[in-house]
């Protein structure tokens, strides 16, 4: 059972530039979609992130049904993360650790998509998507902002102590130890699997790659070297987003390939431009800006939850 929100929020833009989306079942201005895809691509190139956490909320704000926004967002993430993974191919990808992460990702995305379907039927999916965005973007954004402010301060006041490279945490005592050579790690597979499960859940419920949570988890929790983290997380995201896309196609039937293709093409162009601009900025400044952006999207989602809606009633059409 698939629900279709009746009602296209966007205004009367130039009629000739409208494109009909076959799964979302509404027509949207193609220039608006290209601009959105391009802008998100620019930011993802600038900050080196997938951009899934930006594209899904933007699609929802445009009036695309949340189910279609999430499922199509996952499809778009496949393209952006795969192109990023190929770019990092010659550097290092830890395939063994990636495989454990993916196993966890599968464990997370199967119940994730099922949960999504049930919430969709019960009319609570919009709420859960918004809450998930507010919680994750709020906490990650605050942490990132605090971290980048600290590192900008540290850069201006030399002589402060460096972070210890490798700490011994409780999780290093867990069983099922495995050796991950490219990451120079000998750790338990359990925390790796758990990180994978969280990534899979995020991909299926929020339509994001989950890089914003995977990357810090791999660096700070697992203690992986940063250069291996990038390629490996992209490898994991490509696979998990692919699985989430297929599961959404089967379960919610909300993947709109026409919409995905428009976003992918414009995103690719935007990200090349963004990557070039990114080279001119300092890493700490970039991280600070990204943190602000993450917080902004989270705050916008949060505003949608507390602001009194225009209409206290919502309808969803059940597909016969």
């Amino acid at each position: 059972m698939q629900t279709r929100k009746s009602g296209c929020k966007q205004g009367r833009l130039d009629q000739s530039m409208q494109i009909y989306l076959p799964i979302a079942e509404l027509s949207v201005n193609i220039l608006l979609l290209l601009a959105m895809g391009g802008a998100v691509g620019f930011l993802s190139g600038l900050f080196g992130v997938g951009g899934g956490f930006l594209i899904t909320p933007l699609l929802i704000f445009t009036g695309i049904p949340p189910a279609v926004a999430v499922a199509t967002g996952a499809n778009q993430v496949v393209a952006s993360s795969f192109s990023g993974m190929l770019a990092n191919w010659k550097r290092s990808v830890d395939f063994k650790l990636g495989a454990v992460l993916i196993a966890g990702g599968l464990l997370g995305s199967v119940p994730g998509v099922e949960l999504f379907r049930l919430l969709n039927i019960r009319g609570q999916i919009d709420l859960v998507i918004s809450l998930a965005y507010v919680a994750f973007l709020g906490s990650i954004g605050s942490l990132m902002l605090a971290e980048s402010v600290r590192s900008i301060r540290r850069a201006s006041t030399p002589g402060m102590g460096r972070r210890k490279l490798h700490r011994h945490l409780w999780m290093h005592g867990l069983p099922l130890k495995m050796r991950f050579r490219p990451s120079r790690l000998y750790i338990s597979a359990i925390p790796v699997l758990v990180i994978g499960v969280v990534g899979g859940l995020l991909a299926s419920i929020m339509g994001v790659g989950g890089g914003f949570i995977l990357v810090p988890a791999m660096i700070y929790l697992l203690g992986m070297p940063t250069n291996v983290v990038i390629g490996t997380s992209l490898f994991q995201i490509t696979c998990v987003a692919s699985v989430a896309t297929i599961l959404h196609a089967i379960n919610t039937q909300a993947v709109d390939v026409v919409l995905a293709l428009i976003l992918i093409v414009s995103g690719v162009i935007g990200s090349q431009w963004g990557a070039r601009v990114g080279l001119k900025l300092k890493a700490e400044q970039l991280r600070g800006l990204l943190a602000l952006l993450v917080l902004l999207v989270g705050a916008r989602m949060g505003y949608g939850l507390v602001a009194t809606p225009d209409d206290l009633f919502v309808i969803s059409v059940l597909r016969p």
Partner: protein
Amino acid sequence: MNMRNCFLFLTALLFQATACGPANAKELVTSLSEHLVSITSSFTGSEILVFGAVGETSDDPTLSPFETYDIAIVVRGPPVSVVTRNKQRTAGIWVNRRSVQFGGVPGFYAVASTGPLREIARETVLLRHQIGTEFLRFPLERAAGADDPIVEDDYRRALIQLFANSENYRDEIGKVTFLGERLFRWTVKLPANVPVGVYKVEVYLLRGGQITSAQTSPLFVHKIGIERGIFRLATEQPFLYGLLAVLIALGAGWAANAALSQD
């Protein structure tokens, strides 16, 4: 005149007589400018002209030749089930709480008439034939936390209002125009998010508050070309569709990377 011709003439006469009977089929003749609306990638909505003619006044002697008549036209989309949910503030945030599911809700509904509905027809007639959005009634399929009939009515009204906001429900009272004495016309606008399926275009001829003649014509709204292919694949072969979506994305990602490393 031989026997055979005589027989044919008599049958023709008989048919003529039945055709002019009390349920005068010739009293109302209607048609549409198109019977098929195709949704393509550039679909931004469509306009269909509904037109017709009122024939000779019936033989009913009680009606004076100057008796006025009115026209009401209803365009109904395919019936669907719709869940209407009510948001309530819970712990500071707006949450969908109570819900009512209605069945047999037309996915599209437009009504037009020559005059105000209550003036041209009796309320019982409007209710029986569901003419006018305020006279629409839907069977209740399921209610969660809202089984009170008055509350149910709020949900029905909200549903109609939301459909009207997305231009899928519209009242065009007085918009049926006459060209001369007998010809009438009205243009129905289908918005870009119009549902697909078989529509019914009903034209009612009203005299003295009662329906004296009616005609129904089908209208088909469907997706064609690539849109139809994509939609059918997505609903009939979802695994294959998902796989294709992933392969397209992987191909696009690869192409992007190949283009990037050219520099």
